[in-house]
């Protein structure tokens, strides 16, 4: 029982990650794929943050009289990772815009059909 309670949080994160991953793999729409990627990454962030959480601790900004802080290192890592994910999103969407202009569609299958015609 204690394991279930202790790991419940992680399990939800896993479910979220998988939903994100599912969108990325199974969806044919390019924008939605990127949104899925975003969800996937955000879930990973949640995972990181939850592994740095300490029961009874508070945010890692020093104040007098508080001894227990949550883990600042994971926060730092995730700050960096969020920026990376923003960068990826921006670039991915830029490519999508160009694809739309070049192919007139943002559906995976239509693009593949058009490509095959050219070959």
């Amino acid at each position, binding site marked *: 029982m204690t394991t279930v309670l202790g790991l419940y949080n992680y399990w939800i994160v896993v479910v*979220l*990650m998988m*939903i994100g991953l599912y969108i990325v793999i199974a969806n044919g729409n390019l924008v939605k794929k990127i949104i899925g990627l975003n969800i996937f990454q955000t879930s990973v*962030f949640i995972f990181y943050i939850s592994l740095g*959480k300490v029961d009874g601790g508070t945010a890692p900004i020093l104040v007098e009289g508080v001894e227990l802080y949550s883990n600042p290192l994971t926060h730092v890592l995730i700050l960096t990772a969020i920026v990376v994910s923003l960068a990826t999103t921006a670039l991915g969407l830029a490519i999508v815009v160009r694809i739309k*202009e070049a192919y007139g569609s943002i559906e995976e299958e239509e693009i593949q059909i058009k490509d095959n015609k050219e070959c």
Partner: protein
Amino acid sequence: MAFLVCVAIAIVRLKDLFAVAMLAGIYGLLSASLFVSMDAVDVAFTEASVGAGISTLLMLTTIAMTGRSEKTSGHKPLLALTVVCVTGALLIYATLDMPSYGDVNSAANLHVVQRYLNDSFMEIGVENIVTSVLASYRGFDTFGEVVVIFTAGIGVLALLSFSRREKDDSEIDSINESMHEEHLVVRIVSKILIPFILLFALYVQFHGDFGPGGGFQAGVIFAAAIILYAMLFGMSVARRVINQSFVQLFAAVGVLLYGGVGVVSMLSGGNFLDYNVLAADPVAGQHLGILLIELGVGIAVAMVVIIIFFNFASRIGFSSEGDKL
């Protein structure tokens, strides 16, 4: 937590891309609240402005160009499902040996972190441990982060910038003209708000030592103010106010400022990004170093986000024109 799952499932189900993008925004907000409840205030700050703000805006812009409804495709989700299930099972399997949530004595919370918690105030003199780790102990990672976002900015420029600016400006103008006639109230309120937002960005920038915040968040907020301005008063007006190539150069200046601090510390006898040598007193040196690099981060991020948004937004006119032809 359960909220998040609901939203995520809804995103899978919905076909209307616009709604999906908005739900993604909600997802960002929700995960940010979750971060707050897990004590990660800085992260929540960033996630709120990035996940709910900038990313969503970019997605909306893209969708505005690419059309909003998703076609149902006869995709075979079976393969995807298997992949996802296998990965998920592996992760669940991995969790079985994990220390439980919130465990004080898990390895992650004992080894390296203790030094940050106990000594960082003495060594760096900044109340916000996240800031001191971010800017000093792992300063190089942060430098990498700035470079990543700069790379993205350059990538977007390389992909989306175009030379036929004059003609398209008039096109965009005509779209915008109709826009501001309609939204008089919004415009006036925004006019009041924008200076305030800029001020707030500055506050976040320099308050990062004591509370949540720092260069990155400040940069994003600053950029958000400019974006708001651009959305309401039209791209061409905004372009007149903020020159594109000037913005580019400034982004480069931001990155160089960060790197420059490192090089200066290298020249004055320390290692790269070793702020101790910047002033006679190590702690003062750290303060100076952190201040400067946060400024660098702020400038670079704000400019890059503006670049990205401008390039996306000016494409709207372009692609709608293409549709007409």
